[in-house]
């Protein structure tokens, strides 16, 4: 579909949200690939990827609003993802602790033997 008929401010806002969303999604995936152990890897997707998908969904919302249909459908997915991302991250961290996945973090000074 073409977006040329939209006001230039809407076009700029939509393009900025799409750019931020794509960039943060990519940053989350790169972080998950590059970090050293599982507990560090848990950080990248739960924060950066969630923010990136939120940006993409806000861009979709802005496109709907710019065309005059004042709907809130996309906020539903955004809210759902923002609520469920910490829950699934917490469950995965508990699973990793249960399976004794090794960590690369240094031991705390008052506890020399991990």
């Amino acid at each position: 579909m073409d977006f040329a008929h939209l006001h230039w401010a809407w076009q700029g806002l939509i393009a900025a949200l799409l750019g931020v969303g794509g960039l943060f999604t990519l940053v989350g995936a790169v972080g998950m690939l590059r970090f050293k152990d599982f507990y560090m890897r848990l950080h990248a997707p739960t924060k950066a990827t969630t923010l990136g998908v939120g940006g993409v969904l806000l861009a979709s919302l802005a496109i709907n609003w710019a065309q005059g249909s004042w709907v809130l459908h996309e906020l539903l997915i955004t809210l759902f993802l923002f609520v469920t991302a910490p829950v699934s991250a917490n469950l995965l961290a508990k699973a990793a602790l249960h399976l004794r996945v090794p960590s690369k973090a240094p031991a705390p000074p008052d506890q020399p033997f991990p």
Partner: protein
Amino acid sequence: MIVEWALNLALLAVGAALLLCAWRLLRGPELPDRVLALDTMYVNIVALVVLLGLRQGSKLFFEAAMLIALLGFVATVALARYLTRGDVIE
């Protein structure tokens, strides 16, 4: 013009993120790594479906994105519980 350009750029970025997650899914040294990669792939696919819906100008893709988000959360919770307890529903 700028919106189409940004849309293509975002599609490219999300597709590359999906490939990187697939690499972690295949390689991940521990089981929770693979589950985390699968969860991230679900979230990325939600973004990809929404972007494709914007590109095609169709409202149908939105429902698919919503279903994928719900299924991704349920799948991650079930897999994490399986790793923790040994079964999903006791």
